[in-house]
């Protein structure tokens, strides 16, 4: 186990350096003239240019600049946006809202996806099973660029159930519809995963043993089947965090929720390159850490898995 931990950790460090390097290289290696971008449309005279070049370390070789970026990133210093606001502050304002949204999405996923999956897995081939299978297929097939505006139109304009946009100090009620929209993609996949693993576990020997010992069905399902079926779901939820963040860009943009995804979509329209890089770097790091945690959790949840 300890050796696995060390290896997994080293692997994450390698992936961390590689991914940040790719992101950084893509954006800055030949990415136009950053000083002109800083100055906007005003011409920059030579003295100022030389001074700024020195100040931002642009005269350094590329690898040195990448190293500076990495050390700043690890110290939590993400630099400033084009209008001079520290990116750290932008993110500090945006995180709480995005986290609320993500929690709603995950709760929705677990509540509907896992429950429906368990029922469908137990009653395979039933009407409930077949309808949910088709329904989830449809939900998986509808991209969030379609789902988010559609939900907004139906539930806030056509039937005025939810507020159309959430705005600055959004309450939980304001975030409910966007959260459901964000979660719906994972609901479908979670449901299918749960269904598959429940119906597989129902055929396992330990379930037959439990039944033949005379254990009540509720207990067999609740303890023996469910616990073993949840392992792939946990993995999935961790990996899903990546697509959740990507989905948040569209959902937060559509519902005007000032979270991280909204800041990113705004940065894309205002061409704020430092902000884009800052947010993407942080999201990539979060994604890596989430994957690491999931892998470790996997080992805790399933003692059958032995890592050399």
């Amino acid at each position, binding site marked *: 186990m300890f050796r696995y931990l060390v290896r997994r950790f080293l692997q994450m460090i*390698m992936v961390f350096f590689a991914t940040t390097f*790719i992101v950084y290289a893509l954006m800055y290696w030949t990415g136009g003239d950053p000083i002109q971008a800083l100055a906007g449309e005003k011409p920059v005279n030579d003295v100022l240019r030389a001074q700024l070049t020195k100040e931002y370390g642009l005269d350094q070789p590329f690898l040195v600049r990448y190293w500076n970026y990495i050390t700043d990133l690890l110290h939590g210093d993400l630099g400033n946006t084009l209008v001079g606001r520290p990116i750290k502050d932008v993110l500090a304002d945006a995180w709480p809202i995005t986290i609320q949204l993500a929690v709603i999405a995950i709760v929705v996923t677990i509540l509907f996806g896992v429950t429906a999956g368990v029922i469908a897995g137990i009653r395979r081939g039933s009407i409930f099973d077949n309808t949910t299978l088709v329904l989830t297929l449809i939900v998986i*097939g509808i991209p969030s*660029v*379609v789902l988010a505006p559609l939900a907004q*139109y139906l539930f806030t304009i056509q039937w005025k159930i939810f507020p159309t946009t959430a705005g600055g100090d959004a309450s939980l009620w304001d975030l409910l519809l966007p959260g459901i929209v964000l979660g719906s993609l994972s609901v479908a996949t979670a449901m299918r995963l749960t269904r598959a693993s429940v119906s597989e576990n129902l055929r396992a020997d330990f379930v037959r043993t439990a039944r033949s010992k005379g254990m009540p069905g509720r207990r067999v399902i609740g303890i023996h089947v469910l616990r073993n079926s949840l392992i792939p779901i946990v993995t999935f939820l961790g990996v899903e965090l990546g697509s959740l963040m*990507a989905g948040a*860009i569209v959902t937060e943009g559509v519902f005007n929720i000032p979270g991280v995804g909204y800041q990113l979509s705004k940065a894309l*329209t205002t061409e704020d390159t430092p902000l884009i890089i800052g947010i993407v770097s942080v999201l990539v790091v979060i994604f890596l850490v989430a994957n690491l945690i999931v892998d470790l959790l996997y080992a805790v949840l399933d003692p059958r898995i032995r890592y050399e």
Partner: protein
Amino acid sequence: MSDFESVAATELHTATPGPAGDPNAPGQPHTLEVSKPRSAGADAWRELRRRPLFWVALVITAVVALMAAWPSLFTSGDPTACSLSNRMGPPSGTAIFGYDVQGCDVFAKSVYGTKNSLLVGLGAALVAGLLGMLFGVTGGYFGRWWDVLVSRVIDIVLGLPLLLAAIVFMKRVSNAGGGPNVRLIALIAVLGLLGWTTAARVIRSSVITAKQQDYVHAARMLGAGSGRIMWRHILPNALAPFIVIITMALGSFIAAEATLSFLGVGLQPPSQSWGIDISHARLYMRENFIPLAVPSTFLALTVLAFIILGDTIREAFDPKLR
């Protein structure tokens, strides 16, 4: 839509009677089953043929492909002929769904947007498929340091969320001031380069399993070279899950293109794209919902068709699900 359904219905009727290859025994397929051993592929095809969902998805993909190749078959309108006097106009003449906020023909725009979506989807799936096959087969077959290298590269690519990395890359392309074709190729490249890992992993693991099989040892003993063993003996057995993954990836690449265009970093206005149409129409949906609904329907149906296609093929190949 009525066209779709009637086509689907005729397809279904022509497809259902008897095994296609045996015209002499349409009434008794059961006697044939015993006498003739069927391959896994033929078995899956028999299973697949009976699924109405498969035919619906197949018909939609066929219509979409036709629309991409000859958009003028479906509409005589011109997506670029916009006149502000038609702003949010009701359906008239060729514009069967009316006009959008710029006075453009909503239906024509969506029909002409099909080409770019499908080009990006197919192109990226091709890139991802080739890369996945190349690295998956060689990694699984040769093992050792090459497999370690391939696995690490897969780890790194998986560490980059598809949409986020695509945003950064496409932003870089637009900063460099690329034209419509450059953007199209860049989209294909970035989605393909980021999307091959799942296919590679699946192929790699089936290659590792296949490598131990007796028929592979037998082929090697008969003097077959590495290339021949990989191509003729290992690859065909790993093909079914590969096709499924690539079909589904095709759908998700089309969705990713629309999302990137929606966010303003994919294709841009002179090009026709469902994502652009959706992002524009969204702002005026309170006034008129139709310009949002039409490209949304096109996009959702197309993505759905590929996902369903992949899903039904997977079920057909998976004997456990029967």
